[in-house]
């Protein structure tokens, strides 16, 4: 199984441009989350989804949008990129928490630079 697949792995974006980071999981997990990782800050959750059609804001949602039309995919969209969005982005999936507390499975990350 591929697990969680993120594309692209690296990208350079100009200020004001838009782009979509892709996330796909093949483990039939219900929960998907997007995190950003910044030096000295650990990982902070941007948006998450508990099921198809349901999304919610995480700790740092401003400037990002998400949608979830099916179980597998959870794209993250930057509508108008800013240098402050330069970061490493991770998508993570996990099973529902009933009997829960299972660990999150992470994609390989996307290093995004906004110039």
């Amino acid at each position, binding site marked *: 199984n591929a697990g969680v697949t993120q594309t692209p792995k690296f990208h350079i974006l100009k200020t004001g441009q838009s782009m979509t980071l892709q996330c796909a999981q093949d483990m039939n997990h219900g929960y998907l989350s997007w995190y950003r990782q910044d030096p*000295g800050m*650990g990982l902070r*959750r941007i948006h998450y989804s508990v099921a198809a059609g349901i999304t919610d804001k995480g700790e740092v949602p401003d400037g990002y949008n998400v949608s979830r039309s099916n179980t597998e995919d959870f794209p993250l969209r930057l509508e108008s990129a800013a240098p402050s969005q330069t970061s490493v982005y991770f998508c993570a999936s996990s099973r529902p*928490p009933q009997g829960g*507390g299972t*660990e999150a499975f992470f994609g*390989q*990350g996307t290093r995004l630079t906004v110039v």
Partner: protein
Amino acid sequence: AQTVTQSQPEMSVQEAETVTLSCTYDTSESNYYLFWYKQPPSRQMILVIRQEAYKQQNATENRFSVNFQKAAKSFSLKISDSQLGDTAMYFCATHQGGSEKLVFGKGTKLTVNP
């Protein structure tokens, strides 16, 4: 709100020695889970070990073990017989039972020296 604190931004250890990484957390929940993730230079997040709060026995995975002190809200990671491949960032995280929320500490950069 849940918080996770890793008080050691960087640590180093000699190959074959033992090192302990500290983590404290704060939660009002009685049902929660704790994790240590490893992030090597490849950037991949890898689960090292997990602990369920209702279990008193400390979790162990080969050379990795935890010292879980529930009353003190402490969850340290001990790496025995350190290897060069253990060089990585290590993140402590807590997951609230019944919730999808995973909260991370800021990480400890561990370097294993030959």
